[in-house]
């Protein structure tokens, strides 16, 4: 601890304490009568508006991955494996605009809390729902771990806790930061990251504006920075005997890698359970749409953050320090330390640490909800009360964080970005069931399950086999298919879809039961102002009317079907069709002539 800068350390500590206080105080923000319900703890009361949602979803998407790993990848390998992230955050919003509003509507109509809840209701399949939940938890672990790697990078550069060789002592500050995070998530649920996101984004914006305007003038201007970047990427790496990276992807192979990485990551991002959590916490359907148009403004920042990788290359002191440490993740923290006065370094470091805590909290909540709803309640305790569900989620959120900690300490960290890409490969395999299910019920549930399995196996094995001269396994996220470099996640999802389509034909021909679909077509367009009073246990048959579970009872309705008529929230579209209620489970449509 001898080389710790006192000013930097104090500022980080003070801001961390402020965030901790806000995290605990968040439990009282927009306080509901009954906090012991997953709609409250896990979705912040489903009442956030455009403004809060912008910060919350932004805080979800722009993580330590953005601040540490993207510039680190640009620093190390240039455009293809690093700057693709900019392309990816461009296309994620038009893609999300296609399906997220439908997901929001159907989740609100049936009180779904997790993506696996929807799959359960749509396909009437516990197995498929379990597969989705399992994949979600599995994919979130490396993503949370990536946040830890981000915090670790900052702590290392600050000189905190690096003096000991004992893993526990060495990572003690990290443990403490994570423990605090775990406790306030336990207490406040989604309200904590939503409120802290305001502080985070203010700090991040200040950090990035100052960094982009000030640092280039000190290292010789953007022209010089790009010249150094181009020269470095062209230089031959002594370990691999290949160029260090790609400055501008001009070969067709590098272009294909660039765009498949961007497309695959964009498809994956919005089916991540934590993104779904952020989306479902909003009050109205329009808020989702509006945010898809507003969030790209946030992404402009990402472009400049990514370029800090080249800026770090252009600053000789930083480049030398990173090389000496042998860890590209340290590029941005070292750059800040070398360029900024120590008080501002403290602010910038706090921005990164808090920027890692916010998404880590949302991810832990999302993983905990998946476990509680789709594993615990589905398979172990079908009659779990909302209170018990919330209690289980709270505890699981703690366990998930410990798991992520193990993930972070066990895997090689040289390229933290690959952790996230591995999670991306996995989560992409839920895309056909989830997004496909939002538009069509054509796919057979068992075909989707088989497709998922094929995609998971292929993706994991292919990622395991990627090797470089410096790493024998898990060395990257692209591999060569038919002579072209392609993002593994994308080839896996193509296999997944192919298997699903072929088996759907076979299973339909064999008349294997397709399961009951509890959703209605209009519900995918609906925009109810208030969460319907369907039982929160409302996944599957037999849940209708379990009145003891009601979060808030609107207009005295208990069964969700009468609500359509009483409140009319399905709107004018419904005029074309009459709903004849035959009984609680069977509904037919009779178009008006």
């Amino acid at each position, binding site marked *: 601890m001898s080389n710790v800068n006192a000013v930097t350390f104090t500022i980080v500590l003070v801001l961390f304490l402020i965030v901790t206080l806000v995290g605990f105080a968040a439990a009282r923000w927009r306080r509901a009568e009954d906090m012991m319900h997953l709609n409250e703890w896990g979705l912040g009361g489903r009442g956030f508006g455009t403004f*809060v949602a912008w910060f919350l979803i932004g805080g979800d998407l722009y993580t330590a991955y953005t601040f540490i790993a993207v510039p680190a990848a640009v620093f190390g390998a240039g455009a293809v494996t690093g*700057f693709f992230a900019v392309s990816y955050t*461009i296309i994620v919003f038009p893609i999300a605009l296609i399906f997220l509003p439908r997901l929001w509507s159907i989740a609100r109509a049936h009180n779904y809390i997790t993506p696996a809840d929807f799959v359960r209701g749509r396909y009437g399949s516990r197995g498929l729902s379990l597969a989705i939940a399992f994949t979600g938890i599995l994919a979130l672990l490396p993503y949370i771990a990536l946040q830890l790697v981000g915090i670790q990078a900052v702590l290392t550069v600050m000189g905190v806790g690096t003096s000991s060789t004992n893993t526990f002592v060495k990572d003690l500050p990290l443990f403490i930061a994570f423990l605090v995070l775990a406790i306030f998530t336990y207490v406040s649920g989604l309200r904590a990251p939503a409120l802290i996101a305001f502080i985070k984004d203010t700090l991040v914006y200040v950090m990035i504006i100052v960094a982009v305007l000030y640092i280039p003038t000190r290292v010789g201007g953007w*022209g010089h920075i790009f010249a150094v970047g181009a020269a470095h990427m062209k230089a031959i790496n002594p370990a691999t005997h290949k160029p260090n990276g790609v400055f501008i992807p001009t070969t067709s192979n590098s272009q294909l890698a660039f765009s498949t990485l961007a*497309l695959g990551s964009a498809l994956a991002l919005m089916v991540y359970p934590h993104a779904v959590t952020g989306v479902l916490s909003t*009050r109205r359907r*329009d808020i989702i749409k*509006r945010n898809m148009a507003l969030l790209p403004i946030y992404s402009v920042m990402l472009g400049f953050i990514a370029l800090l990788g080249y800026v770090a290359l252009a600053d000789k002191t930083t480049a030398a320090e990173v090389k000496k440490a042998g860890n590209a993740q340290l590029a941005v923290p070292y750059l800040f330390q070398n360029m900024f006065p120590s008080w501002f370094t403290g602010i910038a470091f706090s921005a990164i640490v808090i920027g890692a805590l916010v998404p880590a909290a949302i991810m832990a909540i999302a993983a905990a909800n998946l476990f509680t709803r789709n594993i615990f309640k589905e398979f172990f305790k079908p009659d779990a009360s909302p209170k018990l569900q919330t209690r289980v989620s709270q505890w699981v959120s703690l366990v998930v964080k410990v798991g992520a900690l193990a993930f972070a300490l066990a895997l090689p960290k040289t390229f933290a970005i690959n952790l996230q890409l591995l999670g991306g490969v996995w989560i992409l395999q839920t895309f056909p069931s989830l997004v496909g299910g939002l538009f069509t019920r054509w796919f057979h549930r068992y075909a989707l399950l088989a497709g998922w399995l094929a995609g998971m196996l292929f993706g994991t094995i292919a990622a395991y086999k990627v090797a470089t001269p410096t790493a024998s396994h898990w060395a990257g996220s692209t591999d060569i298919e038919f002579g072209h470099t392609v993002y593994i996640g994308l080839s896996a999802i193509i296999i997944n879809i192919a298997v699903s389509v072929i088996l759907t034909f076979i299973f339909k021909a064999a008349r294997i039961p397709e399961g009951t679909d509890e959703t209605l*077509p209009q519900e995918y367009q609906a925009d109810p102002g208030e969460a319907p009073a369907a039982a929160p246990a409302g996944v599957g048959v037999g849940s209708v009317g379990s009145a003891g579970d009601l979060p808030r009872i609107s207009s005295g309705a208990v069964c969700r079907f009468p609500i359509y008529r009483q409140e009319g929230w399905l709107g004018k579209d419904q005029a074309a069709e009459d709903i004849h209620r035959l009984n609680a489970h069977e509904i037919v449509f009779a178009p008006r002539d």
Partner: protein
Amino acid sequence: MTQPPVASRSSGGPRSAIAAHPITSAVIAILIIASIFFSLYVPLYASATPKIGDFPFFYFYLIAYMPVVAIVLGIVLVLQKRVRPPESAEIPSAAGTGEVTK
């Protein structure tokens, strides 16, 4: 089989709205597809020249793309409102922005 005829009811709602506004719907689809395509089709912008300021074209293009996407998606939202007017005008708070004060 005892199940409801699922396949026939999977997409009832949107079709009628699209049929009522074919041109607007087509424009929406084109705007969304274009905003994805022009980012994914790398050969279009993978070059160092022309330099914009000190920025190689490749880097300038991607950063300048972001605000453009925001504007394009904003237009899409306005068009979507014309295709499908807001369903619950009876809740005026939806249009407001003051939810923070709540």
